[in-house]
């Protein structure tokens, strides 16, 4: 009876949580999962002890016999975990594998102990030594509409080497720290033919995939610690079990992950952008960076709001970790993200702004459009890198978003393009692989850079306004859902048809077939300019321009042709043939030809051969080599005593 009563009370509390609205007036997401966690940080033991109540709702039309949970922290348990094995190639790992998560108690709504029903599985690689996915066989299958309740007590040992999560001295970044439900995908969702759990192991090269959830989290830390989290602080700190600790109550609604950080050295700054209250946690040595950081995040908020959709939460926290916690920098947890900077960074070097804009952007491409980063990482990192580059160019100067020095300018989009086009492995895989399946360490190049580059190319073809329309529609249709690549392509097809009719064909699938699903490169060149004078005329010319497609990718292009009388015309080429000839007859010669003069086709791997002139300008070369000469002279004179 007592057990039944406590079960009813538990259900009541959980339903209260589902239905209650503290932050927004209406729920933003279906709230298939929810968590109520009491967490205590032990700074000396480097552990977090948790008491968690969680629920999952079966929204499918069939019964489900089990639930699956991520136990990410077990990736750091041994050198045999899948993460550790894969990390040997990409991360420096210390000798100590000291991270872990242990469940000490697990009961269902009736109070039945479920410990004997726990089983670690390895759905991705069958690695028997990996314990990052936990399956719990339910005593009774969850029927459609049923809610599965779990009460779990756990202890998380934080790893001493911070790779996104962990500790360094008295600095703590606590992420991927609690047992977390995978996503149960009903048949028809994304690529699902049959319903099932989508719960991948923790890999070196992958991020996350989760349901939008409600989090009520009470964090107990030593009194002198400054805490930041993805939640909104609901109750001011109160004393914990003793005078030396305090407990902070955070609430987060409709976010996909809950992380937090604690460190006595943080200094907190607050600012406001429209409805969003922004908190920045930063080491005291970096107070000079505060204004830059706030400007960056406010610019990002403005750009995303105008060109994608509104930021739906009234709170946002970001942290700039100290040097010893740098491994936690540059990560995203929707309403909490980490930037990356150092004590002194010149004004013209926009690294902190770039990181802040990028990590904030994940609130959209992972937080709101909750894509599956395990399976389609480009949908988060690629789209976000594309927007990062656009924002940096928009607010910090066209083509100088990353570096804006009087003598040196560098754009984020250039970094993306060069990382892709200069990679020797740019053709070893298509852009649609699972994150850990990219060969030759191409995960980053493909997910971030190639995707951003072809998204820029898409914008070059359909135009900036249509691109913004696409992302607004994507937000409207897929916000607080789980879109796939196919869903995004459908949005592109719909919006492009609406804005341009059939100018680009029946749909844009031809573009994605070559860029997202293809491995070809794009390279167009001007092969020749020929001006032949007619024999029977003094000034009548037959001019020929030869254009060549040397790559596999076929994209529509603009060709700029300038004549000797100064006249300039623009020709269009569908870019499909291997060779195209333009011929002109008249009393003028062709003087100069440029393929894609505005550099819209940023996938083109070689801009040098995109143009040709009959009167090459040698002045820049001579000027360049003269400068090189005197610079070498200076170098020698400086380094000789």
């Amino acid at each position, binding site marked *: 009876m007592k057990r039944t009563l406590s079960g009813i009370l538990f259900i009541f509390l959980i339903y209260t949580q589902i239905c209650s609205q503290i932050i927004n007036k209406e729920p933003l997401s279906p709230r298939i999962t929810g968590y109520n966690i009491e967490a205590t940080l032990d700074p000396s033991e480097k552990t977090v002890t948790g008491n968690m109540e969680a629920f999952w709702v079966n929204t499918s039309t069939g019964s489900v016999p089990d639930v699956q949970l991520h136990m990410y922290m077990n990736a750091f348990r041994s050198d045999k975990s899948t993460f550790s094995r894969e990390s040997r190639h990409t991360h420096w790992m210390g000798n100590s594998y000291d991270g872990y998560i242990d469940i000490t108690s697990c009961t269902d709504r009736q109070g039945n102990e479920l410990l004997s029903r726990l089983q670690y599985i390895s759905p991705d690689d069958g690695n028997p030594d990996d314990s990052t996915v936990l399956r719990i066989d339910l005593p009774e299958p969850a029927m459609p509409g049923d809610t599965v309740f779990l009460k779990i007590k756990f202890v998380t040992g934080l790893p001493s080497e911070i790779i996104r999560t962990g500790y360094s001295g008295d600095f703590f970044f606590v992420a991927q720290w609690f047992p977390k439900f995978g996503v149960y995908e009903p048949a028809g969702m994304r690529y699902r033919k049959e319903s099932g759990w989508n719960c991948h192991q923790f890999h070196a090269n992958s991020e996350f995939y989760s349901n939008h959830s409600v989090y009520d989290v009470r964090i107990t830390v030593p009194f002198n610690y400054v805490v930041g989290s993805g939640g909104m602080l609901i109750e001011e700190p109160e004393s914990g079990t003793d005078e030396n600790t305090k407990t902070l109550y955070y609430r987060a609604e409709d976010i996909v992950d809950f992380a937090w950080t604690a460190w006595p*050295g943080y200094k907190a700054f607050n600012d406001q952008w429209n409805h969003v209250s922004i908190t920045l946690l930063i*080491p*005291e*040595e970096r107070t000079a960076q505060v204004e830059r950081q706030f400007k960056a995040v406010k610019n990002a908020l403005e750009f995303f709001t105008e060109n994608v959709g509104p930021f739906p939460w009234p709170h946002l926290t970001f942290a700039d970790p*100290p*040097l*010893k916690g740098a491994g936690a920098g540059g990560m995203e947890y929707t309403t909490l993200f980490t930037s990356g900077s*150092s*004590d*002194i960074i010149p004004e013209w070097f926009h690294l902190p702004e770039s990181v802040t804009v990028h990590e904030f952007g994940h609130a959209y491409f992972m937080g709101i459009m909750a894509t599956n980063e395990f399976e389609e990482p480009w949908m988060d990192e690629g789209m976000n890198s594309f927007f990062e580059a656009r924002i940096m160019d928009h607010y910090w100067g066209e083509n100088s978003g990353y570096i804006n020095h*009087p*003598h*040196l*300018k*560098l754009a984020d989009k*250039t970094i993306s*393009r*060069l990382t892709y*086009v*200069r990679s020797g492995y740019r053709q070893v895989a298509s852009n649609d692989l699972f994150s850990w399946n990219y060969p030759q360490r191409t995960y980053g190049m493909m997910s971030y850079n190639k995707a951003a580059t072809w998204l820029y190319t898409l914008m070059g073809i359909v135009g900036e306004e249509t691109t913004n329309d696409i992302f607004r529609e994507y937000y409207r249709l897929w916000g607080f859902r789980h879109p796939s690549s196919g869903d995004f392509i459908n949005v592109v097809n719909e919006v492009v048809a609406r804005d341009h009719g059939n100018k680009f064909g029946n749909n844009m699938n031809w573009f994605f077939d070559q860029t997202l699903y293809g491995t070809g490169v794009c390279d167009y060149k001007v092969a020749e*300019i020929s001006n032949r004078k007619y024999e029977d005329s003094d000034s009548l010319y037959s001019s020929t321009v030869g254009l060549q497609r040397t790559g596999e990718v076929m994209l529509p292009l603009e060709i700029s042709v300038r004549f000797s009388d100064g006249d300039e015309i623009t020709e269009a080429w569908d870019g499909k043939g291997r060779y195209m000839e333009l011929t002109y007859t008249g009393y003028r010669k062709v003087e*100069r030809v*440029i393929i894609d003069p505005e*550099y819209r086709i940023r996938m083109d*791997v*070689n*801009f*040098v*051969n*995109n*143009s*040709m*002139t*009959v009167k*090459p*300008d*040698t*002045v*820049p*070369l*001579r*000027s*360049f*080599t*003269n*400068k*090189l*000469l*005197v*610079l*070498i*002279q*200076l*170098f*020698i*004179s*400086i*380094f*000789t*005593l």
Partner: protein
Amino acid sequence: MKIINALRSGLLRSAKSWKAALIITLALFFIISFFTIPFRGVLKSSLGSSVVTGQLAKGINFDILSDLSEVLKNYIRGLSSGLFLIIIAGMLFFTFFSGGLFSHLKEGQGRFSVSGFFRTSAAYFWPFLGITLIVSVILGFVISILIGVVAGISLAGETVSFQASGILRVALILFLAIVLSVFFLVADYSRAHISSVTGTSVFKSVGYGFKMTFGNFVSSVSMMFILMMIQVLFMWFMTKLIFVWKPTAGLAVFLMLITTQVLFFIRIFLRSWRYASVISMMESLGKDNYTDQAETGKYIYTFENNPLAE
């Protein structure tokens, strides 16, 4: 007063030796042209008739430069080795000519003679190279320790207050300036010594360089600090001009070449002023020292009676 006298005397002596600065400028110009002229040819043939050179003229364009490097990748290995060799050769030439320069900047030298300049350059090449290597190795060691200190302070950034870390950084920059001044002085005193006293070894000269530097620390370092500041400001101006100047016509390119070479000549002239000032300082400070050496059977040589210059 001692410093002003040394600087004034140094300026006069270097003005008398302007031909030496011109020879060094021209020599480096021709040596480096062995690299830059073929490099321009390679660039020209690789770019073909592309109009991207216009993009380069506007400033550094990483998209274009990177694509160009792809076109040039077959040449780049050869070019980078060539550039390395040219820099080494240039440094050796510079060391070679500094022998002639030091010899001619001494007190009581007559009119500048090109043949005499080359003769003394050749005569002092090996000892000067030895001094350069010894001082460079010690300087490199000290600078790497300084870098270690800077890195340590950065890593301890969370425990040191912002103000304290700022003060430490300024202190480090000042310390670096003093270290550089000290080692320039050691090198210059050593070379001045070896070009003045026959029969002395490289190591003895380096020892003399340290002795003179630390024996007259305040006046020597202050003088060197002033000279270094002037040189740094001049080079700042020069590099600024190089980056800002974007000629658009052939004549302007030629004008730029002439101007930059004139500026480099002034740069060498300033270096010669440094050498001459150190020699003047040594001559005014080290008379007793010379006398001691003269009494022990060693002699102070002027250019005219220097047997190495015969």
